């Protein structure tokens, strides 16, 4: 069964609360880095909320851009990997990672224009008691490999398996990455673009739609909805 998973992030709804980041860390067994390491740019988060300041007359406004992997259709990270550790999953249109193939050249991270790939600088570690809530559905990555957002591929897999077992198609909203599930204002919409009825298929027709760095031709699957202007906004 083929799918084209995609994500839309509504910047009108995003408040920059960071719940998605926490959910992502918890779901994906992302090791904690600690304050000092984080200051050195070694944060292991697969999803970051970039913050920009915009001056509008007297006021300065914060703009939050949650940035997960864009799962580019024409992914620049894939072509430069010498060992095919990162490749295109044709069935799900995902940019997948084979962690135990990765040798850590870090070339993919350089070539990702969104800089969303994170590297395991140290052996993974968790502050107590975080180690007790590791997710059994996916591996803990070893030191020296690159890792990244996979749209919670373990959830996608589970959804597909359940659907096959029950002999039906995946229902819209059945598969949901942790960030989308957790986002309090519901700013993250996720679904299958090949399903014309799905919410994501409706969302991508929105006129507010834009893509990050579209001019680079990466054809990202993660898209954004512009903030609306006007009173009360």
């Amino acid at each position, binding site marked *: 069964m083929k799918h084209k998973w995609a994500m839309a992030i509504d910047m009108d709804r995003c408040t920059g609360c960071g719940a998605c980041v926490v959910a992502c860390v918890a779901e994906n067994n992302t090791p904690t880095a600690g304050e000092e390491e984080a200051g050195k740019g070694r944060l292991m988060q697969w999803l970051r909320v970039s913050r920009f300041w915009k001056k509008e007359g007297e006021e300065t406004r914060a703009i939050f851009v949650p940035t997960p992997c864009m799962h580019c259709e024409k992914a620049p990270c894939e072509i430069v990997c010498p060992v*095919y550790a990162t490749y295109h999953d044709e069935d799900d249109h995902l940019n997948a990672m084979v962690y135990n193939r990765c040798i850590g050249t870090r*070339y993919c991270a350089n070539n990702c224009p969104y800089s969303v790939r994170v590297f395991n600088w140290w052996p993974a570690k968790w502050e107590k008691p975080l180690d007790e809530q590791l997710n059994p559905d996916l591996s803990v990555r070893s030191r020296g*490999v690159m890792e990244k957002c996979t749209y919670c591929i373990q959830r996608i897999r589970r959804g597909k398996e359940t659907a096959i077992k029950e002999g039906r198609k995946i229902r819209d909203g059945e598969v949901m990455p942790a960030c989308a599930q957790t986002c309090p204002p519901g700013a993250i919409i996720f679904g299958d673009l090949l399903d014309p009825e799905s919410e994501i298929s409706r969302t991508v027709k929105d006129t507010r739609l834009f893509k990050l760095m579209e001019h680079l031709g990466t054809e990202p699957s993660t898209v954004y909805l512009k903030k609306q202007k006007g009173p009360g906004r």
Partner: protein
Amino acid sequence: MNERNHLARQGEGKLYEELSRSNLVTTKAWYRAAGILFAVTAGAAGVFFYMMATGIGVTGLSRPVMWGTMIILFVFWIGLSHSGTLISAILRITRAGWRAPVLRGAEAMTVFALMVGGLFPLMHLGRNWRFYYMIPYPNDRLLWPNFRSPLLWDMVAIGTYLTGSILFLYFGMIPDLAVARDFSTGWRKKLYTILAAGFRGTHSEWRRYHVASTLFAVLIIPVAVSVHSIVSWDFAMAMVPGWHSTIFAPYFVAGAIYSGIAGVITVMAFLRRVFRLENFLTERHFDNLGKLLLTMTLVWGYFYFAEFLTTWYSRLPEDWALISSYGGHFLPLFILMLTCNFLIPLPALCLSKVRRSVPAILAVSLVVNVGMLAERALIVVPSLARRNDPSIWLNYFPTWVEISFIVGSITLFSLLYVIFAKLFPVMAISDIKEHLFRTTDRAVGGAVVPSVAEEDEGEGK
């Protein structure tokens, strides 16, 4: 009549003794030098194993700056390696009369710089012990490396160049190894007998040798040029502002030749001092190499200017953020590069006094190589530190681990060279001899000038 011509007529044994002193007796000084170099290199290797055991976290790398000192050193050493074989090949093809004493030293420099440079991409891997995943070896799962990746092209290119340079070096050495075989005893005799491959110096052997060495020289030039183009494509093929530029390939090749010539001069100056080769490596050689270096200063300056000009003119925001960082955080590096690569060498090399004084030109060469290291750093780091997303911009400083790699790479290179000089003839004896035989001193009016007889082009050749 000067002394050198006498030497040639005194027979090969004397010449060999004169040119390869180090092969004959092992002095205390040699043991001391080699010992120190070995100790420092072993220390750096220890640091590498420490990094391998703990994780890449011990370096100063971070999320935007994923490549640092190790890649800088890779580009630097591969660049340095360039000129040796290239100069030697070009001088062979153009039959430059002064070339003979420069050849061997330059070729050996290429091989050792390549060996040192080639280590760094392997060292910088997150899981170094899995480096063989990049090699297309047959395996159960039919997994192949990705031939679309510039890193793989790199591996192939460097492998080719290393093989080519080693063959080139060895091939050029065969007649000298034969001489060494004839004048040595003990285990050296055995070693040289094997390596000399039965070369006896008959007429037909020499004829074939000349044809083959010309062919070799012609073939190695495109390899040399392509290798550094491919190294530049590691960067130029990536979608990183500041890297994604068509000028990178010629620019890298020019830079490589530039630093390579400086490297050759450095190596020559040391050889001359250590092996007392003042009779053979004359001021004329340094003068000529100095002129080459001057040319490359100008070429490099032009390329740098051209690269800047297009960026400055278009002012694309991504590129412009990068260029601005040269005036900000990376200003010291930028100033260092510009001073060492252009502002000092250009006027200095214009003076024939500087070119003809060995200490002075050695100083200029060292300055140029410091500048080239800064240039490589400026290529790799700022582009990454100022990526597309300003929210993650970060600066980079090497840690003690990486600094020890810089030191270790220099000592490793020197160590390899010192061992080489101990084992093999450091000067192209047969080439020198050939040149000396052709040289006679003629009296022209009141002055005595050296004149060189040239081979006839034409039948019977």
